[in-house]
């Protein structure tokens, strides 16, 4: 198909090269330099979408980021991206796009029949209609509404592309590379500042791109900037958010303009920019006027029509009509005339104007003191009704397929406003401009209400000099005459039909008035009630028009009503850019012990413990299921010897003159009495008296302790210690170092443990007399330094060997070799858990942030004398209540029945819960399933039977309430 709306010459496109693309399955051609929107217009495609709520036909309305209508699904398969603005999508060869929100097709949309019911689809319709029954909302109403009002469809497959984050710093960040931005960047850059210049377009120039007479200044300025070493130019980069301390967020579309990114290249890059000073040269968006039928395909912002003609070489229509309240908009009409578009005339609400005179001089008919009261046509504009201002006289029907609208300009104040710069009313432009900034910031050019190329550039140069804060070098600036941008503020033409203030969200002037009548009089309330300005375009073209309609209803001035608060994101940002590289297994970092490679080579099944990867168990070929592996490993410990990697336990080196005092205050029990070379079990409470963490602490010297924590609480305990040292007890001489990763640790447990390790540990007499339970000593294994702790978590005779982690595998292998004749077996976290449940040791399931020391049978750990963290609040009545659930053991009455953690303990036949199961396992010491539970009146119930019920699974299991110590209650084995 030929590009029948393409001009023969002119514009910034390369007519010598052809790019092929498809829209809704049909093939078209465009040129490098096109956007999807300009290429579609060149091919005469006018209807590009259906509206969000009413499914009205919609066309391309703008030529930029403010586009409300022309949203497409770009690309296909896993790369399908919904809600892409066609006006921002750079054309590439092979581009595939599809229109959205139509069924079954764009031209014939069944859901548009809903428009017949439009009078009832007013603001708040959903809230009012889908109220009852409440249970229907989630399951029936919402899915229906979502289908009718859907935007595009996201891809279902994982995104195949890479995304990156980037942190940047600069003296001056310039947002926008129009005349103001280019001049600001050049002044700052020439003055020696580190400058970042962000431009959302793929070409630098902004408004310059549609002014061929300024091309030379633009080109010279761009090449000067490119030659400056400390100026970073980022095209295709949208600054979307402005945060405290001059931190701004931006997305660079690195590879959105090609079918697929090159290898090793991200699709998008998410920039966090920290700037000493910011120049906001974000330009302005042209404002719509709310008149009936102002949403019909063929109605377009005047400046956009000009951009299509002069930048893209595209006639957006065959016969154009202008409706404008300012002189500057006439330049757009003249540009169309120069490009060969037939001109139907100009409609101007002002009685007389310089623009109108200039038009008449060009032979263009002008309806002065007039307005447009409606449009005609179906899926494309056929004409408009012109009448005298206010509706006097009869309508004139004017034939046109392009209606250019200009209600003035809205400076793009989004970023300034996000940074808390107050907005100031500009009477001449009838709009808001940035006031005095809160942060180091300057708004320049159209963003500050300064219109015209020469004026904007001069204003930008001034802002650049101010940002530089030093003597500013002179730069060449463009010259030229500037059209008058002052407006006669008209916002709305009141006539029959729907006049839209927010085209994307289908919000009409009547919706705003309805919101007002129903009590939503504040601009923020009216916004939420009507969805005004809540679309992907954030009301860039009509936000203030809706505010003006509300102001009239309130009988106030627009500037007294104000605009809704601007918040990030000023323009849409993809999830991919936000997620960056943090997807899949890179969602969070992974911690590996020094023995990880050994575990992998030996077939371990891994499980997550916080960020750690720990071996759950080590299946061997003869194991028929996971339980068989776990039971085999646990039996090896009970009967002979096993070895487990316990490197993940937190380890903190505590030194200093006051180290013992510090630990006495931190733990419920006493460490100052601990002898050097001995370890002690310690219990820590939170400030509120609930158990925080437990572990063994060893004394290495008078002024040095080696503290261990549970795996998951390691960082929290370290932070807890640091917090108290820095705030509560800054007088204490204590130094803390995390040595979790310095020391690999392995627990060797079982009756054959001493026989095993005595063969390889040198420098320590491991005999029971010389190295009793809770002894600690330094030695070597095959020349590697080790620290041996006689501590046990399983209830068996056990030793923990710690070694600097670079020697972990060598020491581990030495132990395995020494224990081979006893059948030494590596065991994982599952067997570790089994063994500790049999022994009645509490762990994470019992230290759950709800239990007290007494609940866990650890009341003896609370020292009688001396203060410690949590002591006072542990005395609260609720925590000392003897009716609280306490730790008990459980055993399934029938040995083949399974227990389930989380089950509730009830009297047979009752549904009153007396407690719950915290941990369960199959046992090896005795037959069947056992568990630990928190049970009210636990001690009195030992010896009785209860029911463990798990209603979600319909399970009821009879259990015997027993002591939690299934293994060696006298604790003889650990001392053997």
């Amino acid at each position, binding site marked *: 198909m030929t590009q029948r709306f393409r001009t023969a010459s002119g514009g910034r496109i390369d007519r010598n090269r052809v790019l092929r693309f498809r829209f809704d399955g049909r093939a078209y051609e465009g040129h490098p330099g096109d956007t999807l929107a300009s290429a579609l217009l060149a091919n005469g495609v006018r209807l590009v979408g259906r509206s969000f709520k009413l499914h009205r036909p919609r066309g391309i309305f703008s030529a930029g980021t403010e586009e409300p209508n022309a949203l497409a699904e770009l690309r296909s398969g896993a790369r399908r991206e919904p809600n892409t603005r066609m006006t921002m999508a750079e054309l590439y060869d092979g581009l595939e796009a599809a229109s959205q929100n139509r069924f079954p097709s764009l031209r014939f949309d069944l859901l548009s029949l809903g428009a017949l019911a439009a009078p009832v689809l007013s603001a708040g319709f959903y809230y009012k209609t889908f109220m009852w029954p409440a249970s229907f909302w989630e399951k029936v109403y919402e899915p229906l509404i979502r289908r009718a009002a859907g935007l595009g469809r996201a891809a279902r497959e994982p995104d195949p592309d*890479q995304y*990156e*984050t*980037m*942190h*940047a*710093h600069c003296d001056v960040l310039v947002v926008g590379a129009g005349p103001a931005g280019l001049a600001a960047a050049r002044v700052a850059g020439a003055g020696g500042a*580190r400058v970042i210049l962000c431009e959302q377009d793929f070409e630098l120039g902004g408004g310059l791109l549609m002014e061929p007479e300024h091309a030379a200044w633009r080109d010279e300025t761009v090449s000067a900037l490119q030659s400056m070493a400390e100026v970073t130019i980022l095209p295709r980069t949208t600054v979307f958010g402005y945060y405290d301390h001059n931190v701004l967020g931006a997305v660079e579309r690195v590879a959105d303009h090609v079918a697929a990114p090159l*290898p*090793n*290249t*991200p699709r998008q890059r998410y920039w*966090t920019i*920290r700037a000493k000073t910011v120049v906001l040269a974000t330009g302005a968006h042209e404002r719509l006027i709310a008149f009936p039928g102002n949403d019909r395909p063929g109605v377009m912002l005047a400046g956009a029509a000009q951009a299509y003609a002069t930048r893209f070489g595209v006639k957006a229509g065959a016969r154009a009509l202008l409706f404008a309240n300012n002189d500057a908009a006439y330049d757009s009409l003249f540009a169309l005339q120069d490009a060969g578009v037939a001109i139907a005339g100009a409609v101007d609400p002002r009685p007389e104007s310089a623009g109108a005179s200039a038009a008449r001089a060009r032979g263009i008919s002008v309806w002065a003191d007039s307005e447009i009261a409606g449009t005609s046509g179906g899926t494309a504009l056929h004409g408009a009704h012109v009448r005298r201002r206010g509706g006097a006289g009869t309508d004139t029907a004017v034939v046109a397929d392009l209606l250019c609208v200009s209600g003035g300009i809205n400076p793009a104040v989004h970023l300034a406003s996000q940074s808390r710069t107050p907005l100031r009313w500009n009477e001449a432009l009838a709009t808001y401009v940035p006031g005095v900034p809160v942060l180091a910031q300057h708004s320049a050019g159209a963003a500050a209400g300064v219109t015209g190329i020469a004026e904007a550039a001069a204003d930008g140069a001034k802002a650049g000099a101010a940002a530089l804060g030093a003597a500013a070098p002179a730069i060449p600036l463009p010259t030229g005459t500037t059209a008058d941008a002052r407006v006669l503020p008209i916002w709305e033409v009141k006539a029959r039909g729907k006049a839209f203030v927010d085209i994307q969200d289908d919000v009409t002037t009547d919706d705003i008035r309805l919101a007002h009548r129903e009590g939503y009089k504040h601009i923020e309330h009216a916004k939420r009630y009507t969805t005004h300005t809540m679309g992907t375009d954030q009301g860039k073209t009509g936000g203030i028009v809706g505010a003006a309609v509300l102001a009239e209803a309130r009988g106030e001035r627009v500037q007294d009503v104000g605009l809704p608060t601007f918040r990030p994101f000023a323009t849409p940002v993809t999830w991919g850019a936000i997620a960056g*590289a943090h997807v899949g297994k*890179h969602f*969070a*970092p*992974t*911690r*590996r*012990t*020094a023995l*990880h*490679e050994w575990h992998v080579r030996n077939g371990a099944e891994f499980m997550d413990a916080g960020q*750690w990867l720990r071996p759950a168990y080590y299946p061997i070929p003869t194991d028929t299921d996971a339980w068989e592996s776990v039971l085999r490993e646990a039996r090896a410990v009970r009967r002979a010897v096993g070895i487990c990697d316990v*490197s993940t336990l937190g380890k903190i*080196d505590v*030194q*200093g*003159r006051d180290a013992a005092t510090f630990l006495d205050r931190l733990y419920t029990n006493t460490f100052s009495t601990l002898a050097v070379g001995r370890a002690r079990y310690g219990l820590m409470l939170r400030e509120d008296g609930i158990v925080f963490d437990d572990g063994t602490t060893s004394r290495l010297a008078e*002024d*040095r302790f080696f503290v261990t924590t549970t795996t998951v609480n390691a960082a929290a305990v370290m932070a807890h210690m640091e917090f108290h040292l820095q705030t509560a007890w800054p*007088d*204490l*001489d204590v*130094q803390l*170092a*995390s*040595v*979790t*990763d*310095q*020391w*690999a640790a392995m627990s060797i447990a079982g009756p054959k443990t001493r026989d095993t390790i005595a063969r390889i540990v040198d420098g320590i007499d491991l005999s029971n007399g010389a190295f009793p339970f809770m002894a600690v000593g330094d030695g070597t294994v*095959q*020349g*590697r*330094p080790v620290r041996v702790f006689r501590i046990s978590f399983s209830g068996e005779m056990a030793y923990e060997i710690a070694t*600097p*982690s*670079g*020697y*972990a*595998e*060598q020491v581990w292998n030495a132990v395995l070799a020494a224990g081979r004749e006893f059948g030494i077996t590596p065991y994982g976290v599952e067997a570790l858990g089994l063994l500790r449940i049999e022994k009645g040791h509490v762990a994470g399931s019992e230290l759950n942030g709800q239990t007290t020391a007494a609940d866990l049978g650890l009341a003896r750990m609370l020292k009688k004398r001396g203060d410690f963290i949590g002591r006072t609040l542990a005395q609260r009545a609720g925590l000392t209540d003897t009716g609280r659930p306490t730790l008990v053991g459980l055993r399934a009455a029938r040995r083949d029945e399974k227990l389930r953690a989380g089950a509730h303990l009830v009297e047979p036949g009752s549904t009153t819960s007396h407690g719950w199961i915290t941990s369960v396992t199959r046992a090896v010491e005795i037959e069947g399933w056992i568990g630990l539970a928190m049970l009210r009146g636990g001690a009195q119930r030992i010896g009785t039977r209860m029911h463990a019920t798990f209603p979600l699974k319909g399970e009821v299991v009879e259990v015997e309430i027993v002591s939690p110590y299934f293994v060696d209650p006298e604790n003889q084995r650990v001392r053997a």
Partner: protein
Amino acid sequence: MSAPEPVSPLARHLTAGRYGAPGDAPVYISERQCVLVQLFARKGRGDDVASAMQAGFDLQLPSPGNAASAGEITALWIQPDAWMLVAPRGSEGALAARIKAACGDAGSVVDQTHGRTVLHISGRRAAWVLAKLCRVDLHPSAFGPGRVAVTPVADLACVLHHSDAAPGFDLIVFSSYAVSFLESLTHAALETGYDVA
């Protein structure tokens, strides 16, 4: 028996070769085998530790944000009254013992040789690659050789040392995270391409 050689967590993860994009400005990634010792001045003993290190090692402990070297030892400021001392590999625990002997009860000393892993990245675009992972401004006007920052890199606690003007940076991370950290670093370096020596 010969002296035992510790095994790095990256031993099986750094394979010599050229990876990522081809191009003329790759970054160079390697592991540095070092002895690492954490030195703290005890409460009110900062001057004693400083003079002990001056007397024993001719080393002037650096101020916040900086590194200082004497002979083979480089000291990095890591927190108030604490430094990480970096030196070439030697016999196990020897440097920590020497420093403890020099400082006596004025200092607390913790050997972190195995607890931390040191990666080195260099090349013209090293700062660009690091900017993907790190918030610190690495521009020569803001950072530069001899500067140190304790900051998250790739979401992990890291001591970042601008170790040489090439430019080159030492990245000291917890050993258990070394593999994860290396994955993030090499992913970030795909764009420039990277060379493992």
